[in-house]
């Protein structure tokens, strides 16, 4: 094997290079030549190709993502901002929390189990590289139609992968989403979110500081898996009948990751680390160039010292390998022995592969020969930036003009009852227990709320009860109808889910899943969604602390629904006073907060019953969302609420059904005067929640709402004794809606819980 050294590259300047196969455009290749003043060596080409990929460089999204910094609201909470591996938020009492969501969409389509598993692994290492102990994970997932043949291949594999990896790591899975839509057939979205906690003093950053300090690679050995994952897999559109790309998918070993977590936390806690970086996309290329670029600016690496699983790997492959469960630490020479001893304690292999220099160059040798000599910033941070052209799609006006107003609506009592049952069992609204029962939500013993609650909530401090709540949401249909409003509605729903539990929102993360940025109409969706999200965060006063962009989620010319998944994190000073979604005993009063309008554009009713998508999404009123949040948090803090649940997909009917099933107790409810029963039950106006108030608190609560001018309608009362009145045997738990209809909870439960097993266990 001839090694393409720097000397060789200089001597053979015109040797053809496979830049196109590595995903680089001709002008990008020329730019590398200009930076280096010569052609790159094959190893340098490998590094640039992975680091300048869309996935690593954000070259198409950067100009839009800047808004998150430019429009950042005033906040004291942000300790570390966007740009690091994950943002860090102050939650009080000396505690800090970091959270981030990432996509693993393309690998999960090719190889569902490993794609999903390594998605968890990657985001967990991201969180660790901030110095935090991972404390929980969540998974926003999207698939093609439940009954589509390929969904039966992809979904069980993804769920098993999320569970198989996450359960084995010992991190509770506390929530997420499972959404079905035609557009995700062939482009499933597998996003993974991790939350970590640390003391303020423990924050670590990815930088190689201190000339003479050592670069230690530790964890799993480097193998041939996942080579070019980011450039080939994540940054290209699938061809309908292209070659299988399975060799580009990484293979996970959760046991090694668990050891890596424990070893990493111990070396951090012992103060043995100057800088730390996870190895994920682009592997050693990414870790070395980013650490050097963030630190003194120079690093030298002896690449032949990397421990290999496969001794035949070439240096280019070693640089590009995305083998999982690896970390890179910068360690002072005096601390090396102690560092190595802790790695040995946890049976984790570690090796010094380089040292920090002040040369301003990243140099890499292979058995004594120089194969890389580059300015690290040009690899890590100064990649290409594109102002991709974008324009409003030609079909957008037609889509918005096609309102749901003409769709046939149920009006007779038995029609309304049938519609309610139909929706309660619709794949998007049905119980997701088939999924969540495969995840361990109990491990670590701090899970206070988990699916199907509005947010996941974990206790951070066992002494004080301080904790955090996190929710992720997005209705891609709303985003298709109006990407600006759709992104804000995703933010609003996530925000609402956090305040419903009584937590105060502090920060936002996102995972922006879109089609090809080379399509100007997709790029417009992206530009509008990011603008909407940035404006929305400013108005709600919560900053974006980090996130991820996933482009090229399309098959042929057909892109997925624009899907800007938004995660909101809130803090609660004592998890003991969280508001759950199950209502309490007989006699408690059920209130609907907010305004109900005739809004069905993008609704679940239009989608499920009529297969219709058109019109405009619900009106966004973020000032109202903020007010609703203040009322819900005050209600929790002052003990005025027994339960709360947000109103979103499926409308008030779905909210009431979920609350009733969660508690197992029936209720008498009624349609407020002046509202059409169908609109009341199934409309999806934003800015609403259903709350349950003990009679003793009713006056205080309604006066608070009146004083703050938040509409509050009494719509029901918890009642376990409705059976005989509604025509059911005594003791039957029943949900009664005005004098329109009644349904037994048992029937609701059978329908709600039957949908997923009927298809997935068949």
């Amino acid at each position, binding site marked *: 094997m001839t090694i393409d050294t720097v000397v060789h590259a200089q001597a053979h300047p015109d040797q053809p290079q496979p830049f196109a196969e590595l995903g680089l455009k001709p002008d990008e290749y020329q730019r590398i030549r200009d930076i280096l003043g010569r052609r790159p060596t094959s190893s340098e080409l490998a590094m640039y190709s992975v680091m300048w990929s869309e996935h690593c460089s954000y070259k198409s999204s950067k100009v839009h993502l800047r808004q998150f910094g430019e429009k950042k609201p005033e906040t004291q909470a942000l300790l570390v901002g966007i740009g690091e591996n994950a943002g860090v938020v102050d939650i009080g009492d000396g505690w800090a929390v970091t959270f981030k969501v990432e996509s693993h969409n393309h690998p999960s389509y090719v190889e569902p189990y490993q794609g999903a598993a390594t998605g968890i692994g990657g985001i967990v290492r991201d969180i660790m590289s901030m110095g935090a102990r991972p404390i929980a994970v969540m998974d926003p997932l999207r698939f093609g139609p439940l009954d589509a043949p390929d969904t039966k291949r992809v979904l069980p594999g993804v769920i*098993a992968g999320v569970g198989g990896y996450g*359960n*084995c790591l*010992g991190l509770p899975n506390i929530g997420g989403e499972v959404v079905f839509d035609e557009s995700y057939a062939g482009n499933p979205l597998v996003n993974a979110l991790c939350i970590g906690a640390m003391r303020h003093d423990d924050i670590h950053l990815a930088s190689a500081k201190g000339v003479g300090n050592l670069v230690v690679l530790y964890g799993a050995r480097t193998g041939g898996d996942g080579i070019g994952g980011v450039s080939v897999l994540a940054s290209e559109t699938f061809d309908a009948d292209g070659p299988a790309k399975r060799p580009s998918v990484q293979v996970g070993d959760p*046991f090694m990751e*668990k050891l890596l977590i424990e070893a990493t936390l111990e070396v951090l806690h012992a103060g043995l680390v100057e800088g730390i970086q996870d190895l994920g996309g682009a592997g050693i290329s990414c870790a070395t160039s980013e650490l050097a670029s963030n630190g003194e600016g120079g690093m030298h690496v002896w690449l032949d010292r990397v421990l290999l699983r496969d001794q035949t790997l070439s240096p280019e492959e070693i640089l590009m390998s995305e083998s999982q469960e690896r970390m890179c630490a910068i360690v002072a020479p005096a601390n090396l022995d102690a560092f190595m001893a802790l790695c040995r304690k*946890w049976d984790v292999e570690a090796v010094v592969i380089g040292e920090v220099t002040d040369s301003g160059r990243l140099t890499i040798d292979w058995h004594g020969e120089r194969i890389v000599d580059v300015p690290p910033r040009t690899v890590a941070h100064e990649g290409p930036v594109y102002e991709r052209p974008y324009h409003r799609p030609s079909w957008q006006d037609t889509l918005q003009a096609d309102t749901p107003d003409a769709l046939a609506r149920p009006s007779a009592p038995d029609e309304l009852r049938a519609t309610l049952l139909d929706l309660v069992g619709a794949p998007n609204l049905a119980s997701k227990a088939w999924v969540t029962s495969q995840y361990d939500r*109990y491990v670590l013993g701090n899970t206070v709320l988990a699916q199907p609650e509005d947010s996941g909530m974990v*206790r951070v401090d066992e002494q004080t009860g301080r904790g955090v709540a996190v929710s992720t949401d997005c209705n891609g249909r709303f985003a298709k109808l109006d990407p600006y409003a759709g992104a804000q509605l995703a933010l609003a729903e996530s925000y609402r889910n956090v305040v419903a539990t009584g937590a105060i929102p502090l920060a936002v993360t996102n995972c922006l899943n879109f089609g090809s940025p080379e399509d100007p109409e997709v790029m417009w969706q992206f530009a509008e969604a990011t603008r909407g999200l940035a404006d929305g965060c400013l108005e709600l006063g919560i900053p974006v602390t980090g996130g991820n962009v996933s482009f090229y989620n399309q098959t042929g010319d057909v892109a997925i629904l624009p899907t800007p998944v938004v995660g909101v994190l809130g803090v609660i000073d004592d998890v*003991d006073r969280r508001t759950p979604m199950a209502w309490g005993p007989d006699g408690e009063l059920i209130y609907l907060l907010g305004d109900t309008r005739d809004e069905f554009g993008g609704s679940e009713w239009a989608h499920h019953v009529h297969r219709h998508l058109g019109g405009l999404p619900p009106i966004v009123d973020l000032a109202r969302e903020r007010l609703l949040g203040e009322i819900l948090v005050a209600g929790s803090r002052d003990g005025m609420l027994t339960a709360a649940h947000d109103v979103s997909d499926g409308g008030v009917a779905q909210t009431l059904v979920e609350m009733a099933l969660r508690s197992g107790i029936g209720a008498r409810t009624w349609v407020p005067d002046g509202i059409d029963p169908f609109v009341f039950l199934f409309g999806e106006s934003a800015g609403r929640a259903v709350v349950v108030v003990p009679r003793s608190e009713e006056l205080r609560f309604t006066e608070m709402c009146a004083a703050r001018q938040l509409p509050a309608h009494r719509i029901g009362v918890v009642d376990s004794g409705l059976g005989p009145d509604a025509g059911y045997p005594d003791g039957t738990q029943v949900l009664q809606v005005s004098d329109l209809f009644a349904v037994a909870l048992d029937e609701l439960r059978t329908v709600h819980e039957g949908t997923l097993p009927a298809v997935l266990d068949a």
Partner: protein
Amino acid sequence: MRIGVVTFPGTLDDGDAARAVCIAGGEPVALWHGDDDLKGVDAVVLPGGFSYGDYLRCGAISRFAPVMTSLVPAAQGGLPVLGICNGFQVLCESHLLPGALTRNGSLHFVCRDQRLRIERTDTDWTRDFAPGQEIVIPLKNGEGCFVADERTLDELEGEGRVVARYLEVNPNGSRRDIAGISNARGNIVGLMPHPEHAVEALTGPSTDGLGFFTSVLTTMVRA
């Protein structure tokens, strides 16, 4: 009362087990897999997790850990030992308990709040329960299907060594709905569900799990 909690590589619920010991009123003592020193503890919990990744076979590698070379004779000599989930698998692989735990009947990992009946209350880990008491504690496993040959199952039943049985739903296909068993002397108990996750009303489905940890303290007070 000092209760050891063993950590193998890949153990996950050691922190939860230690917390449960504390809440019950005991003092948890961390025991390391690579160390054969039991530190003079009065009882030992083998917690849940995926020791050694559960590669090969659940518990098959942990059985050979240095800590087990001390623990096995101590348990045979009467030291109270509770194996939960992966710990139960380790006890079976170590031949301290009969039978084996295999892949769930559904072939899926399952996490649920499980109703159980305590069938035997004269073991070191269940004496604080009432005979026939029904409890709800979390269950979470991928390989929790208890199997043994018919003769062994008859023996376990005949000798009253079935400690707990699944009610309402058999979540993993275990023979005769068996959720937990003990040795004849009642000092070694293996249990598939997780009592350490049901010790606080805030985080568990109940506080029913506490009974296992208070029981062993009661045992020691009596001894």
